[in-house]
């Protein structure tokens, strides 16, 4: 990205920047090396501790945990997205009788910690941990999706809706046919970021004893003994980061493919306005 924020650096600036970069990189590498050394001194990288990963039952447990994480996340996303869409349409409805109560509900859902909602569903309605986790995630993320899509619709030029109404579309059809498709495309980065948040939030299922990845790791560390705490947590962190980065990348790829096809009609894509996602 050759930026508009600064002039193209001259030879001197480039040299300074290069030297700075090298020193900075060395410092960071040095810090990492020091961390690894200190941890190694405490025996955390002893092969004995990592040998558990040669056992199939360890991987099976991790696999089950991962399966539980992905199934809860997938189901929640599949329900939360259309629900968020519907809530968004109600939230910007013309009639205040619909708009205002929906706004109150959204405010409430956004303001409650997800852990609390999960616990509440589990205890209040006597559901299984899986249902509690999914419900908690759906309620919260639907509210966030609704907000993101709303922000997308509001960032559209007014003319879009006016033109829709002018050619005789009803308010609802203008939203569905003209505004939503543009808003969703525009907010894709935020929506994907929120999907990743949703995936990560499955780890809050520990509160209702849902056996997702992190819980599986915790249980495993408890069972095997504290010596294995660090190895299993490092592996879990690596799995999470890999999956989440893969999801983000996949979304970027899908978006690129989509926008190439759509590029014919639209003008040059504007940069995404603002992100409304919430961690």
């Amino acid at each position: 990205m050759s930026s508009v924020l600064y002039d193209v650096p001259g030879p001197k600036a480039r040299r300074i920047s290069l030297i700075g970069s090298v020193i900075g990189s060395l410092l960071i590498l040095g810090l990492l090396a020091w961390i690894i050394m200190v941890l190694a001194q405490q025996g955390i990288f002893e092969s004995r501790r990592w040998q558990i990963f040669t056992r199939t039952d360890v991987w099976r447990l991790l696999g089950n945990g991962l399966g539980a994480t992905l199934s809860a996340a997938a189901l929640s996303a599949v329900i939360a997205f259309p629900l968020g869409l519907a809530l968004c349409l109600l939230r910007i409805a013309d009639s205040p009788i619909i708009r205002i109560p929906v706004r109150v509900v959204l405010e409430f859902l956004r303001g409650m910690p997800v852990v609390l909602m999960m616990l509440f569903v589990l205890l209040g309605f006597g559901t299984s941990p899986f249902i509690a986790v999914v419900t908690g995630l759906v309620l919260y993320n639907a509210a966030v999706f609704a907000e993101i899509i709303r922000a997308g619709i509001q960032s559209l030029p007014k003319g879009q809706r006016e033109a829709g109404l002018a050619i005789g579309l009803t308010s609802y059809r203008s939203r569905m046919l003209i505004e939503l498709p543009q808003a969703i495309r525009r907010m894709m980065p935020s929506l994907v970021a929120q999907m990743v948040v949703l995936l990560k939030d499955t780890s809050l299922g520990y509160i209702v004893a849902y056996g997702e990845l992190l819980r599986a790791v915790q249980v495993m560390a408890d069972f095997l003994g504290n010596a294995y705490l660090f190895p299993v947590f490092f592996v879990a962190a690596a799995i999470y980061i890999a999956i989440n980065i893969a999801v983000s990348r996949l979304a970027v790829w899908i978006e690129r493919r989509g926008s190439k096809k759509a590029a014919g009609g639209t003008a040059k894509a504007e940069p995404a306005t603002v992100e409304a996602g919430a961690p």
Partner: protein
Amino acid sequence: MDVIIENLPLYWEGFLRTLFLSAVSGVIALVLGTLLAAARVSPVAALRGFSMVYVEVLRNTPLTIAFFFAAIVLPRLGVKFEQFEIAAIIALSTYTAAFIAEAVRSGVNSVPVGQAEAARSIGMGFGQVLSLIILPQALRTVIPPLINILIALVKNSSVAGAFFVLELFGYGRQLANANGDAVITVLLGTAFFYLLLTVPLGILASTVERKVAIAR
């Protein structure tokens, strides 16, 4: 209902702890996040790279794992702290900073190109362009999403309850265990105190949003 009234002091203590964690982490995350966003658009390649890696890794890590590193791995490295609040603040602020950096960066991108070009044409350097021209405009448009991130931060602080800090959610669980006959009421009480923090923030966000929209 009696359970809530009887235990109001405990709720209040938890509420204050949650408020403290959120406020301190929020301020640190705002500063750190803005610096990261500035690094991301800076001319120095290493800074851009560092900022990108930081944001990518932290955004894709579950908060629980961030807490694990702050509360359990750091002490192993010799970073000892008397108060576990410090670990919680480290985890919450480094995690939240990644989200703030992304929001601020998209705000920077939303400022019309002409602004930066005009600033440069009158001889401003990168630091001046960013701090005097771009950021003031960018921050205004990203205030609503920033507040949303802060709302999430308030709620995320509940994870600290599992990592050695007794905050609102921790008190809620303690009360739930002590009052097996009124678990639901206890949880409703906890929810109320969270909403006391998050709903005003949400209303603030939409008010600011409306103001900014008018000013545009």
